[in-house]
């Protein structure tokens, strides 16, 4: 991390600390204060949007571990999120287990399913892996749609609201706190994971897995670990999503969503902590913008009927292409530049 000049480290732990200067701490405090007082002045609608953003950040962070750090492209992320969502839904609805059990097992089972589909990654990569994750996406959704006795099939399944210690989290605001706490934990842990031995192994595998293997990195263990962690977070996000929406069916987890997740981490910046957050903000806020704007545009310019449904995919497809071509390091890179220029001001 780049620091202002004059900051010295006198111990290793100091050197490794995430927040170094007083300014860092002040910014962190301001950010947290702003976030946690949010429900006081955000409308219910916007709280809902923020909740969705939080959930998506968790999922995107998972994908970022898998794709951004470890280099294993997954086009089935929505499928793994679905596994988590349905696990949690079935646990709490059909078996009436507590929410926290549902949440944790959602992560665990999604992680395990991810590992199974990640096994081919030991022998194949690039396009092959992409295809096998697409297959995972379709197989998972198909099973969900057809195992009616368990999942409710095409109709869907209703999910009781999350409850912790007898307190049921029904309102947007109460869910907001739940989701934000999970987001903060996830982001914090991922940031540290990336700087650990495991994170370095992931990056080595991403850059050249053969060379990594020769250096003594156990590919089998680390690739599967990446799949487990990435899909674990997908499962957590799925569980939160299920309890947040209260009712769902497999339509919430299409391949289009999977592609959108890839788009998010690319737009945000692969292999950075801040990247998925920025990418999710970009896409979700753009979606809001489109929801507001397209009826207006449609009325004023007499657009054809498909305008509203078509605009979203067109904009996002274009955004993915443009970012890949013009700014492959994503918004995170921009963000770093902005910070640097702020620090170096007035030069």
């Amino acid at each position, binding site marked *: 991390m780049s620091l202002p000049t004059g900051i010295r480290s006198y111990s290793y732990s100091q050197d490794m600390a995430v927040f170094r200067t007083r300014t860092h701490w002040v910014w962190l405090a301001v950010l947290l204060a702003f976030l946690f007082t949010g429900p006081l002045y955000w409308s219910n609608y916007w709280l809902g949007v923020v909740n969705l953003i939080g959930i998506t950040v968790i999922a995107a962070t998972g994908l970022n571990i898998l794709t951004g750090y470890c280099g294993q492209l997954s086009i089935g992320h929505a499928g793994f999120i679905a596994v988590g969502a349905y696990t949690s839904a079935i646990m709490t609805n059909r078996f009436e287990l507590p929410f926290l059990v549902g949440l944790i097992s959602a992560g665990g089972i999604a992680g395990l399913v991810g590992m199974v589909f990640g096994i081919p990654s030991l022998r194949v990569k690039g*396009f092959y892996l*992409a295809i*096998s994750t697409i297959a995972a996406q379709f197989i998972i959704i198909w099973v969900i749609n057809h195992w009616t006795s368990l999942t409710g099939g095409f109709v869907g399944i209703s999910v009781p609201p999350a409850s912790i210690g007898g307190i049921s989290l029904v309102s947007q605001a109460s869910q907001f706190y739940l989701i934000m706490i999970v987001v903060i934990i996830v982001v914090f842990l991922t940031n540290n994971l990336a700087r650990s031995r495991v994170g370095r192994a992931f990056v080595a595998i991403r850059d050249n897995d053969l060379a990594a293997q020769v250096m003594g990195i156990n590919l089998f263990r680390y690739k599967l670990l990446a799949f487990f962690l990435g899909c674990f977070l997908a499962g957590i996000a799925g569980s939160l999503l299920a309890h947040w929406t209260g009712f769902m069916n497999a339509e919430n987890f299409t391949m289009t969503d999977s592609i959108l997740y890839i788009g998010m981490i690319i737009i945000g910046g692969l292999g950075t902590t801040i990247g998925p957050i920025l990418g999710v903000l970009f896409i979700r806020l753009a979606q809001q913008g489109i929801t507001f704007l397209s009826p207006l545009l449609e009325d004023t310019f007499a657009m054809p009927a498909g305008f509203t449904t078509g605009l979203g995919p067109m904009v*996002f497809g274009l955004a993915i292409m443009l970012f890949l071509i013009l700014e*492959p390091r994503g918004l995170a890179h921009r963000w770093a530049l902005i910070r640097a220029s702020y620090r170096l001001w007035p030069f």
Partner: protein
Amino acid sequence: MAEFGQFAITGVTVGMVYALIALGFVLIWKSSGVANLTLGQLVLVFSWFTYGMLVQAGFPVWLGMPLVVLFAVGVGWLVERIALRPLIGQPILSLITVTLGVAFFIEGMVSFIWPKSVAALPRLFPDEPVHVGAAVVSQEYLWAAVISVVLFVLLTLFFKRHRMGIVMRAVADDQMAVQACGIPVAQIFSRSWMFACALAAVGGVLMSSIGGITFGLVETGLKAFSVVILGGLDSFLGAIVAGPIIGLAENVGGGYLTPLTWPGVREIIPFVIIVIVMFIRPHGLFGERRIERI
């Protein structure tokens, strides 16, 4: 037994159409090493364009079909020019995801221009079905199979004999050495995209004249992936053999498994095959095993 024959013949013929679309994939892969994940969306947009030509604009087939192929070639040129060319030499991750971006864009455009979700094409081939033994096949299927085989032969000859085909293979081997011969590599990429799109257009028309135009056509494109995975990414022969296998598995397997398991089992068979191939023979039936060195 008659039932089996019916499943088998439908399977093989429909598999030939998958093979046709898969040929387009192999073409691009062979000449530029790019995995084209837009296949499904390309099939979709070309089918709709055919609808636009034949139904909305009311052109006769002899005029409409060449226009469709022309349009496809144009789309291929555009996609290569705008999305792929700036990324020449970038890591495979970028190349794959940029085609996903294109796929997304095309999907949006289709629902923008053709907001209807389903439509039917006029019949391109005569109505009355053909009897093959005890089985009955509609002519569309047979035509589809014949066209696929013809195109396969042409493509194979093209890559073996034609100058451009040879150069396309050379590019797959060593891009820079081709450039050093003063050959415009970018133009070669562009051509292979144009060809591939033309193939996707023909495949799309055949698919949608059989089953109508629906969003499900995107999945036809995905089935083409299972064909290339099974056949081997860089093998035309692989595609043409694996296509019917996938079609057979889908129809015969679907036909016999549906009573035993859940309905709709046939939709999932190609994807299960992908996973199985990935576990036991990742380079497919005929694919070259790439040697990798550090």
